[in-house]
């Protein structure tokens, strides 16, 4: 948690949340006397939980502590925040030329054997000064970035772990658990994409989820509720039960539903219950 900012009684983010990273931009703004409002910064900090309890690679969780996390990485983009007047304003991720952030909540330890030691649990955003109490974002990579050449893509689109080789584009989320020694995972991204991998014209099922976090404040993490993500999944279904993005796969239909995406269209019908505001 940021400690450098001056705290106020009002814990929604306000002008005190300027950080070192945005200082240069803020100074440039002031010096140029241009029409930029003094932007403020805030962090969205993500935390994986199951039934309200923190989840990491190294500790069992869930019913009878029978579950282990094996993977949890996903892309976040198109972030916006709602102010007191109910107006949504686009928030710009700081230091992210692609506008896409990879949230990586696994650290390669424990059951996360295919993971990476690197982690990233937060996004730093810049937004016009104001009081905001809700956040929205897209789970996934926007279409205009999703189908570029992964060999020449900028971070965080340069990691082959998130690229989806037999479909085009990226895995928007890859998550997995080990339950009673059986591993189950979901890889989800756009499917039914037409065209060569680096020049896709359209995808039949975009499969990008929408998250809306109510009662948000800087002090509150954005919770990734694994119980909501996995609700209804039967872990020992034959043959594999994994969801690899296929629309006609029963496990995928469950995951899509849990993410608020209509299976027949690949479009969100509402906010994904998987993402919500957590108590500290």
């Amino acid at each position, binding site marked *: 948690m940021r400690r450098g900012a001056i705290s106020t009684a009002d814990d929604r983010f306000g002008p005190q949340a300027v950080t070192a990273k945005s200082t240069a931009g803020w100074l440039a703004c002031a010096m140029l006397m241009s029409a930029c409002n003094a932007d403020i910064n805030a962090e969205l900090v993500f935390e994986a939980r199951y039934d309200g309890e923190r989840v990491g690679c190294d500790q069992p969780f869930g019913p009878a502590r029978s579950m282990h996390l094996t993977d949890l990485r996903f892309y976040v983009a198109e972030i916006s925040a709602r102010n007191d007047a109910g107006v949504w304003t686009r928030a710009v991720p700081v230091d992210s030329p692609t506008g896409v952030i990879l949230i990586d909540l696994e650290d390669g330890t424990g059951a996360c054997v295919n993971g990476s030691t690197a982690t990233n649990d937060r996004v730093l955003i810049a937004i016009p000064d104001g009081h905001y109490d809700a956040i929205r974002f897209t789970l996934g990579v926007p279409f205009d970035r999703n189908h570029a050449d992964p*060999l020449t893509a900028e971070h965080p689109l340069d990691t082959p772990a998130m690229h989806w080789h*037999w479909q085009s584009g990226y895995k928007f989320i890859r998550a997995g658990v080990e339950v009673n020694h059986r591993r189950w995972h979901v890889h989800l991204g756009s499917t039914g*994409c*037409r*065209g*060569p*991998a680096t020049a896709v014209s359209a995808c039949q099922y975009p499969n990008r989820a929408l998250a809306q976090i109510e009662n948000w404040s800087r002090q509150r993490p954005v919770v990734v509720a694994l119980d909501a993500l996995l609700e209804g999944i039967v872990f020992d279904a034959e043959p594999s039960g994994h969801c690899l993005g*296929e629309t006609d796969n029963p496990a995928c239909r469950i995951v899509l539903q849990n993410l608020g995406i209509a299976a027949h269209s690949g479009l969100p019908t509402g906010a994904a219950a998987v993402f919500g505001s957590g108590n500290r």
Partner: protein
Amino acid sequence: MISVRHGIALLLIGVVAPAAIAFVARPAVPVYAWSLPASFPTPKVPGNNPMTRQKVELGRWLFHDTRLSVNGSTACVTCHVQALAFTDGKATATGATNERLPRSSMSLVNAAYNSTFDWASTNVTTLEIQMLRPLFAQDPVEMGLDGAEEQVFELLRGDSRYPTLFAAAFPGDNDPVRWQNVVQAIASFVRTIVSADSRYDEYINGSANALNEPELRGLELFLSERLECFHCHGGFNFTDASTHDNVANPPKQFHNTGLYNIGGSGAYPDGNNGLHEITGQDRDRGRFRAPTLRNIALTHPYMHDGSIATLDSVLDHYAAGGRSIAEGKLAGDGRQHRAKSEFVTGFELSSAEREDLLAFLHALTDKSLVSSPQWSDPFAAGASHASDD
């Protein structure tokens, strides 16, 4: 003097989906000197990975290096063996961690000319994109680099040969041992695997006695409207799924050859419905790309799942117009598949004609391909330094 047969064979060279060819201005002459016969066009090369000798040489080492797998057991060459025309002799391959793959390892011969890659994908149009799957995929695991690539690259950096090879291939790159460069180098090497030296090619290039009488009769059968082989397996590369440098819109041809029709539903075995897995369209069930027939005598067993063991059985399959499976969970009459190619209608073939056709198919074997040192294992050669050439 050009005989009628010679003329027919010359015609065969030019048969590459004529409607799809648009001539574009040739790009600037690349630095790389391809050694191709006159009858072969130049392969398409992605603009961001121009060919160089140094990339090709680095690619040859990486192609043969088992350290490019999660447990050091598997290299590209494991499933793409030179002596077997760069396939592995198995019905379906097995990955580094012993997971069974759903489909047969494709021959890399003339992969530089492929319009699409893998058995059935409209999306995978370059070797570079294709290669990400065998290297990184999890479902199933092939070489298993997902999550392991940094450890693997540390191993490569620690090998005394690689710094020189990488520096030569990627000059000016301060940290060249990265997955992007590994992929580009291997792709460059694979692009050089060109087979153009069979006795059929000798015949095409003017050596009238290069094919004997049975083989010449087999060639005529191959080109006949009765058998229709050339419709899917025509052109200089004996597949319609080819492209080259002068083709603006490469054809993407996929064909259902009536191999399965489970319960009459049109389904192929789970996970092996061909193009349907990409498009979700019913009409794409069981549609796969036609591989090259060059060196076909070496690349048994046949079909996307290796379910036809010999060339003789392949001819049976096409003569019957498809395969009917009487019993078991795959039972169904593939000959009735509603998406079956209109060119797979069955035909009469006498036993003498069968022998001629098989003789011709064997004449597509390129003996220099399987023995040329340019694609051989540099580790086995005991080379302690990178080749200067």
